[in-house]
């Protein structure tokens, strides 16, 4: 077989040597436009797991690579004039030049044809081949010949960054944050040779311009960066290597192969540098492709197998990388965190390190964080896991950060709660939740979702809740009443059968606009002024009843497509009066209701808000934040973030902690305490609280006894 590989980077060379080693009779040619000793970039990083794969694929290069390695196991964060170190993260770095040298030598030994200074512009430039490999980087020429098949999509990041080097030796993977007169600048630095370190400088577009980088030449750029990071560089210079400021291009392609052509590494996909995986992914691609070509006779099948094996792994990395990229693009908002929370925030940015992992990696670091968090509370004498810290909210003291709520409606009659509610709520309290929340309590009979919903709209409801509140207090928990109005999602059957299944004879529904929730559902009435007043007064009455019942906290549910949420979203609010259109108008009625309740309720008052509609044309992120800000200014003490259910045909994403990114945005950007749920376990809750992403966590995945561990049986 004749294989032509365009691009003599780590991926191309590694593939060449693996193929030649496996079948010495094959003709393997690598075409590289640069001379053998030219290279860009400084150091590359591998994890111990990748190294194990290298060892299996080719012992010779593995030994040479590991001989030249710099190993380190710590991550340092410099911020607010302090340095914090967390250990136990094994990394290995090597100079890119050294890596290329090793691979080139091995290729030559095995008999791979290496042609340097060979530029390939069009297919006619190529020698004859049975397989053509595009290993020519993110701007791949090979890919461009069949752009309509590969359909490359490049998404540039929002931040600017430049790849520099420095002779300042670093003892760890280092993140540096510097607040300057022009804005926030950050550096990612890591060692790779006896003395040299990679030093990547990153900043937002505005800070970049304000600092004059857009019109600075190479020397000016280096001097200014040295100035910004003088404290950490300690007199060492920064070097450039044809370095330019760019915005990180994340590349995706719909397929990685076409006929006898296959893409490798950066030519097929890229992932943000902050998880340090570009070269690693590229070389893993090479291993998988070489293996597939040996396993399958048929070329098409082999290329398909290669893509099938690698694509899920690469996409998982791209997801983690995107999350990491977003973190670094928005670090400005994390600057309100103290160094301890900030360090934890950075360490857990891609969601792949759990709280337990951190403790295993560096118990002393976790202890220092816990001591720091404990020092903020007089009554906490000993360091403890973050969720066990108390929390204060407008005079209310919660014993810990765990909130629980019952799964759903427990079967009330005409809104009247009974034994079922008491059992459910006391059960949650008995299991240690500091705060117990009720199901959504309807503020009026028409505001119920199903006829089984409990409510808080008659005197006897208040009395009944009073008994339940006392029972929950007896268990040592605090209890919050969640008030809501179903709006156009009302008058449905018991949720035992499913959601949003209309009653045969639905009561009249209210909504901002006369749009049914489902096309086959009942059409609500567009609310007039009197309807609004009635709803507002219903909330006020419910708040009074809640006060009478002795609830510790009141929470208004303005999410999930219920009445007030449908005022907020442009998808469901089509009004042309003062209550529709602009964001200010769409917020008007929800804020009116909130303010009216705020006037009669003295204790802590929270709101559930939609952070996203998860549907095209829905509330954009900036609006969601503006909404949270408006409620904070109106006297809201706590925001619970939700997403979706605004419209039924949405685009959901489930997973552990799927609401956490919204919580983080609201808490850090708006500066208000945040309650978050969405598939959290205790471990995620600890991370969210300790890293300053959330204040209270609803645990709904853990310890609810829903794992059926009864022995298998044949008979039902």
């Amino acid at each position: 077989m004749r294989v032509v590989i365009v691009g003599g980077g780590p991926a191309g060379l590694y593939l060449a040597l693996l193929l030649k080693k496996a079948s010495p009779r094959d003709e393997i040619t690598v075409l590289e436009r640069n001379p053998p000793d030219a290279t860009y970039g400084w150091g590359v990083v591998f994890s111990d797991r990748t190294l194990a794969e290298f060892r299996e694929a080719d012992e010779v290069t593995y030994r040479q690579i590991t001989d030249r390695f710099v190993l380190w196991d710590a991550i340092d964060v410099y911020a607010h004039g302090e340095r914090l170190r967390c250990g136990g993260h094994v990394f290995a770095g090597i100079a890119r030049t050294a890596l290329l040298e090793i691979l080139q030598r091995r290729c030559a030994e095995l008999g791979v044809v290496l042609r340097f200074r060979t530029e390939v512009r069009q297919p006619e430039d190529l020698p004859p081949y049975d397989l053509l490999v595009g290993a020519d980087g993110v701007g791949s020429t090979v890919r461009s010949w069949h752009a309509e098949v590969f359909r490359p999509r490049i998404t540039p990041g929002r931040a600017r960054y430049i790849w520099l080097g420095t002779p300042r030796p670093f003892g760890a993977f280092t993140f540096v944050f510097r607040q300057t007169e022009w804005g926030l600048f950050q550096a990612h630095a890591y060692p790779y040779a006896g003395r040299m370190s990679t030093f990547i400088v990153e900043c937002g577009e505005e800070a970049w311009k304000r600092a004059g980088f857009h019109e600075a030449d190479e020397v000016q750029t280096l001097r200014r960066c040295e100035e910004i990071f003088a404290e950490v560089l300690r007199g060492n210079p920064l070097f450039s290597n044809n370095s330019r400021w760019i915005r990180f291009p994340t590349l995706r392609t719909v397929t990685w192969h076409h006929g006898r052509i296959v893409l490798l590494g950066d030519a097929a996909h890229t992932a943000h540098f902050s998880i340090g995986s570009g070269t690693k992914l590229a070389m893993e691609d090479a291993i998988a492709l070489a293996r597939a070509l040996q396993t399958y006779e048929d070329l098409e099948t082999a290329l398909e197998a290669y893509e099938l094996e690698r694509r899920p792994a690469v996409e998982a990395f791209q997801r983690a990388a995107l999350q990491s990229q977003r973190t670094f693009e928005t670090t400005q908002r994390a600057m309100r965190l103290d160094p301890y929370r900030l360090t934890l925030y950075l360490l857990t940015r891609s969601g792949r390190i759990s709280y337990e992992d951190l403790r295993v990696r560096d118990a002393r670091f976790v202890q220092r964080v816990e001591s720091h968090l404990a020092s903020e509370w007089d009554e906490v004498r000993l360091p403890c896991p973050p969720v066990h810290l108390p929390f204060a909210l407008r005079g209310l003291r919660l014993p810990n950060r765990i909130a629980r709520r019952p799964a759903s409606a427990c079967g009330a009659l005409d809104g009247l709660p009974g034994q079922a509610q008491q059992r459910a709520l006391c059960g949650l309290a008995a299991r240690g939740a500091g705060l117990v929340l009720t199901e959504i309590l309807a503020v009026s009979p028409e505001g119920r979702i199903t006829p089984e919903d409990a409510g808080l709209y008659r005197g006897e409801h208040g009395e009944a809740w009073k008994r339940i509140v006392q029972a929950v207090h007896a268990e040592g928990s605090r209890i919050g009443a969640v008030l809501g109005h179903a709006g156009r999602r009302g008058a449905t059957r018991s949720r035992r059968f499913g959601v949003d299944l209309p009653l045969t004879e639905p009561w009249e529904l209210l909504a901002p606009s006369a749009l049914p929730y489902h096309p086959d559902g009942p059409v609500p009435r567009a609310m007039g002024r009197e309807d609004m007043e009635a709803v507002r007064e219903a909330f006020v009455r419910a708040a009074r009843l809640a006060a009478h019942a002795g609830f510790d906290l009141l929470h208004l549910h303005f999410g999930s497509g219920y009445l007030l949420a449908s005022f907020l979203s442009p998808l469901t609010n089509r009004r042309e009066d003062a209550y529709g259109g602009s964001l200010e108008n769409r917020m008007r009625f929800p804020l009116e209701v909130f303010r009216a309740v705020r006037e009669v309720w003295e204790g802590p008052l929270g709101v559930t808000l939609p952070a996203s509609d998860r549907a095209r044309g829905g509330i954009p992120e900036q609006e969601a934040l503006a909404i949270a800000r408006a409620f904070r200014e109106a006297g809201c003490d706590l925001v619970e973030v939700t997403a979706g259910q605004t419209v039924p045909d949405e685009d959901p994403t489930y997973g552990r902690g799927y609401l956490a990114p919204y919580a983080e945005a609201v808490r850090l950007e708006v500066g208000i305490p945040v309650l978050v749920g969405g598939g959290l376990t205790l471990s995620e809750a600890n991370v969210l609280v300790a890293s300053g992403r959330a204040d209270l966590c609803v645990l709904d995945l853990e310890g609810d006894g829903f794992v059926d561990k009864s022995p298998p049986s044949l008979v039902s």
Partner: protein
Amino acid sequence: MRIGIGLPSGIPGVRGDLVVRWAERAEAAPFSSLAVIDRVAYDSYDPLLALAAAAGVTRRVRLVTAILVSPLRNTVLLAKELASLDQLSAGRLVVGFGVGAREEDYAMAGVDHRGRGSRLTEQLRTLRRIWEEGKVGPPPAQPGGPPFLVGGFADEAFARAARYAQGYFHGGGPPRAFGRGAELARIAWREAGRPGEPELWGQGYFALGEDARERAIRYMRDYYAFTGPLVERIVGQLLTTPQAVVQFVEGYAEAGCHELVLMPAVPDPDQVDRLAEAVACAW
């Protein structure tokens, strides 16, 4: 965890009387359910007709579609068929729904492949209404109709299961893969505000005995040919020894599965007894 067994109705070349005898044996074995797969462009029986035949020779086992590619079917006729089957089996029907994985089936049936997801959502909502309105008889034997399960790996599938069904039907794989799917099903269930927990069903393929293995692999390679090289991974999960069955069953029970359906990859009637024997050793 309950354990069900598949009918051999999805294996090419199987004679009708074998499907019926298989159902009798499973009833006696005793498994909790009998399941069928659904394909159009393949030598396989119509799933609902196969279950109807099984209904006639059984009294106890539940009859399950695992899964039914319902967007291929007219909703009103489907309502009639499912209700009839529920009546014929005296209320033993459980319907697993999905959009299917093969575009070919849609082309063959002349149904647009696009929009299959929203059509499934609409069917899940409409079927119960049709039964309730009672214009299309008979009414299902189970009050409100048979329980619904939804299968699939997309986020939309979890949303559909949580919103319009009684549970989630996992598409197969090792117990850990099931565990991940089950977790997403629970998260979606919670988000939808449903009471209790979703019913969680899993499935796997078995072929017990030395001579069965080769034939089973041939069948799996053929049936899953459309997945390309992925087929080898599916073949690799085939349960061919009692040891593998016991491990698989225990793994699923530990991962929170409520009912595990084991599908045959060879149509020999003695497979029913071999499987019953192996399963009896679990736990």
